[in-house]
C-alpha cells in the first residue's frame, strides 16, 4: 500500500467518532409522521369530505386513493432503503406500482371524453392538483432529508421515487377532503399532482442527492 493511502487511513481512523447506524424503521417512522401531520393539516384546513367517517364513499374514491396509497408506500419503502446502498438490492417495486396507477389517467380521459355519467371534467378541478402538490411537501422534505443523510447511488431513480411517493401520499391526503368522486376528476387532477411531483423529483431534486 502506498504512503498516501496509509496516511489517509491513519487520519481517517483518528477521526473515528461513534455514529448511529442507519435504521430503516426510523426512516419509515419519520415519513409516516410527516404523512400523518399532513393529513391532520389537510382535514383541519379543508374539512373531511362528506361520508368519509361513515364509510359512504364511491368505488372510484376507494380505487383511486387505494392505488395511490400503494404507489406512495412502495416508493417510500424504496427511497428509505436506497439510503443504504447494496449491490444486489432491487428497487423495481415502485415501477410496477407506477404502471398500475398509470391506468387511472387513462380511465379518467376515457370518462372525460365519453358520454358516460362520469364524464365530468371541470377545469376548476385543477385546484386539487395544486392542493395535492402542496400536501406532498412535508413527506417530500422528510424523504429528502433522509436521502441526504444516506448514500443513494442512483440519485435519479431516488429522485423519481421521492417525487412520486410524496406526490402520491399528498394526493391521498388531499383526497380525504375532496368531494368530487368522478373518475374523470380523480383520474386526471389527482394523478396529475403525482406526475408533476415525480418529474420535479427526477429532474430537479435528484441533482441535490448526489454526494
Amino acid at each position: 500500500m502506498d504512503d498516501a493511502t496509509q496516511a489517509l487511513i491513519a487520519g481517517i481512523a483518528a477521526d473515528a467518532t461513534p455514529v448511529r447506524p442507519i435504521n430503516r424503521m426510523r426512516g419509515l417512522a419519520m415519513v409516516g409522521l410527516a404523512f400523518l401531520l399532513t393529513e391532520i393539516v389537510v382535514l383541519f384546513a379543508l374539512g373531511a369530505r362528506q361520508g368519509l367517517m361513515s364509510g359512504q364513499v364511491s368505488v372510484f374514491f376507494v380505487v383511486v386513493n387505494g392505488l395511490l396509497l400503494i404507489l406512495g408506500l412502495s416508493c417510500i419503502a424504496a427511497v428509505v432503503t436506497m439510503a443504504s446502498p447494496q449491490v444486489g438490492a432491487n428497487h423495481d417495486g415502485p415501477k410496477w406500482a407506477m404502471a398500475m396507477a398509470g391506468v387511472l389517467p387513462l380511465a379518467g380521459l376515457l370518462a372525460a371524453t365519453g358520454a358516460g355519467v362520469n364524464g365530468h371534467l371541470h377545469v376548476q378541478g385543477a385546484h386539487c392538483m395544486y392542493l395535492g402538490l402542496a400536501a406532498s411537501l412535508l413527506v417530500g422534505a422528510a424523504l429528502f432529508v433522509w436521502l441526504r443523510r444516506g448514500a443513494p447511488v442512483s440519485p435519479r431513480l431516488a429522485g423519481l421515487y421521492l417525487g412520486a411517493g410524496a406526490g402520491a401520499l399528498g394526493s391521498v391526503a388531499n383526497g380525504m377532503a375532496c368531494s368530487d368522486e368522478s373518475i374523470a376528476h380523480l383520474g386526471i387532477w389527482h394523478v396529475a399532482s403525482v406526475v408533476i411531483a415525480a418529474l420535479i423529483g427526477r429532474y430537479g431534486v435528484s441533482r441535490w442527492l448526489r454526494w
Partner: protein
Amino acid sequence: MTGDEETMARLMRAAQRGDRQAYAVLLEQAAKWLRRYFQKRTAREKLGDLVQEVLMAVHAKRATYDPSRPFYPWLAAIARYRWIDHLRAEYRVQEQELFDDIPGDENAEEVVMARISLDRLFAQLPPAQAAAIELVKIEGYSVAEASQRCGQSQSLVKVNVHRGLKKLAAIIEKAS
C-alpha cells in the same frame, strides 16, 4: 489477502461505535480489496486516487452501513458509484498500461465477489458501449484514436460513451 465478510462486518460495527483500532484495520483491508476490485477497470496512475476517494466516501457515509446486512455489497456499491464518477471526469492518461490480471483468492465468498465485481457490471453494457468506454475513459485514448481502434465513427464513440455511462449509473446496485 483481505478480510472475510464476517470479519469485515464485525470491524465495521466496531468502527460505527467509534473503535479507532478496528476502523484502521478495516480501512487497510478495504484499501487492499479496492485495489484488486478496480485494477482491471482503472488506469494504473488513477488507481491510488480512486481507492482514496472511496475510503473517504466510506468514512463520510459510514453511518449508512446497516449492521444487519453484509459488508462487501455495501462497499462495492460505494466503489461502483465513485468509479462511475471517476469515468465521467475528463482525463487522458499518458500511460495506458493496466495492471495484469491478478487471480483472486479462492474462498467460499468467491461467488458473492463475482456478483459484485466491476466486470459483472461492465458485462451488462452493449459491446459497442463497453468498447467505447474502455478505450476513451479507461485506457485514455482520444475519441479519434478510439474511433480507429474500434471501428466506430467519432460521433458514435461519443454517443456510446455517454449512453454507456448513463446506463452504468442506473445499474450500480444490480448484481447480475
